[in-house]
């Protein structure tokens, strides 16, 4: 019932996004860690070329859900998923899917910048190399293009052979985004990408998201509600493993349907 209601709300608002193609679809997703249920019957669809924010208090399941889209949870002991997740109409938990191929399509940026202890160039080229691309000119082109896309090129173009660990935190995070872009994914998952950064670096990355939206679908987990309000088209509020409300960002922040959402965004808990 609740789900139906939400879908009706969605169709009512912002035509532009709803007319776009669905790229991610979760159908009745339940996630367990052993006996603990981390996600409870989640249904949700995400459209192409949009920014979707997942918000909610710590431990609400938003990161777990995000990590289902590229199957990063596979390495957690006792992780168990029930239900279906479709990306581009492919069931990604179907056991014949090649996980490596999936992750090429669905890139991820992590909470803390995690560049490899290699050169800047090697960091961006890494994804291409592991996917078997040997054409050096193509790799170089992609590296330059990706670094330009994240507005890092001007800062590092003379230092491509230097260690990525020498960059500042904000630069490192943009490098990690460039690294993800280089393999040309369709979707980029971001798990609190600015939580370890200073405000200026954060602003740069937020700015970046607007540009990236033109080419990619972005799903971002954030602790920061202002950030969600600033950058996303749609927002999903999670609480204790439930998807409480999923709607246009504007609606969520100005006119939430659920009391819990209201309480959360006004800072009464979390």
């Amino acid at each position, binding site marked *: 019932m609740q789900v139906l209601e939400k879908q009706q709300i969605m169709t009512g608002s912002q035509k532009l996004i709803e007319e776009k193609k669905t790229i991610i679809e979760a159908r009745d997703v339940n996630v367990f860690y052993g006996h603990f249920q981390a996600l409870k019957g989640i249904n949700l669809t995400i459209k192409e070329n949009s920014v979707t924010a997942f918000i909610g208090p710590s431990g609400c399941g938003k990161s777990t859900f995000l990590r289902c889209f*590229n199957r*990063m949870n596979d*390495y957690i*002991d006792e992780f168990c998923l029930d239900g279906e997740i479709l990306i581009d109409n492919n069931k990604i938990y179907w056991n014949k899917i090649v996980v*490596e*191929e*999936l*992750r*090429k399509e669905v*890139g*991820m940026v*992590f909470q*803390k910048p*995690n*560049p*490899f*202890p*290699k050169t800047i160039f090697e960091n961006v080229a*890494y*994804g291409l*190399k*592991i*996917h078997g691309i040997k054409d050096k000119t193509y790799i170089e082109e992609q590296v330059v293009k990706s670094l330009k896309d994240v507005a890092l090129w001007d800062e590092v173009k003379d230092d491509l052979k230097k260690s990525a*660990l020498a960059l500042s935190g904000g630069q490192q995070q943009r490098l*990690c985004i460039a*690294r*993800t872009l280089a*393999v040309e994914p369709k979707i980029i998952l971001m798990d609190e990408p600015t939580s370890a950064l200073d405000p200026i670096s954060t602003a740069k990355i937020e700015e970046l998201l607007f540009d990236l939206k033109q080419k990619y679908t972005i799903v971002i987990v954030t602790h920061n509600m202002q950030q969600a309000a600033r950058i996303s088209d749609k927002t999903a509020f999670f609480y204790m493993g439930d998807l409480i409300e999923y709607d246009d960002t504007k609606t969520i922040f100005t006119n939430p349907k659920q009391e819990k959402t209201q309480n959360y965004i006004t800072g009464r808990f979390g």
Partner: protein
Amino acid sequence: MTNALKNKLIDNAFKVFGIICTLFGLVILGILIFNIAEVGLTRIDWNFITSLPSRKAEKAGIYTALMGTVWILFLTAIIAFPIGVGAGIYLEEYGKKSKWANFLEINISNLAGVPSIIYGLLGLEIFVRAFNMGGSILAGSFTLALLILPIIIVSTREALKAVPSSIKDASVALGASKWQTIWNQTLPASIGGVLTGVILAISRAIGETAPLIVVGALAYVPFAPSSPMDEFTVMPIQIFNWVSRPQHEFAVNAAAAIIILLLITFMMNGVAVYYRNKWQKKIKW
């Protein structure tokens, strides 16, 4: 008041005792090295290093033993390195948390505690007899390789464990397979620690005497070995042989040979420590 004073006194007395104990170990180490240097240093010359063994102490040299040690060093390294590092990778990156992995872990910690002479008995029956290698360098190397395997496995695992999981996550999230991630990220990031462990293990191997005596390394070998199937002796056995003789001249030879053996051992340890420090400095997560 008196009680507090008494406590203070005991405290300071123990401090002095602690300093004495700590210095004791180092003083003994100093006496040991000084004594050996005093006895043996004058005996070392080019002839001593390049001469074949002899029944006359003043003519005897360490050439065959030194060559034997070099052969053993390389063959043991070649055998133990891939197996040890491979097993370390498997245990750390693949076989985690299962009952089988738990069993493997207990087994390895037990193997690390098995006396080296027992490995000699294993080598004697398996490599020397069953595989028909005889008392050859190859049989000795296989035996020592098994002996140092637990050390290499444990240190490899420690080094791999030190690589932050965020690096592995980043690689996997780009679509790298498990092995691609290990080969391109985890191993390069931990190679300093891995190599340190391997070098320390091999330096332990070249100091080993008992297992090689048991597998049939000889005390007297007239010629330097030229193939892995040759009979051989090594530095520690040559030293043991000379120590066992009553004449003082042979004790001088033993001391001189010990200086060479210690030089090799300390050099390898030094390289290992240097590697470790360099690696720890280079990568600060």
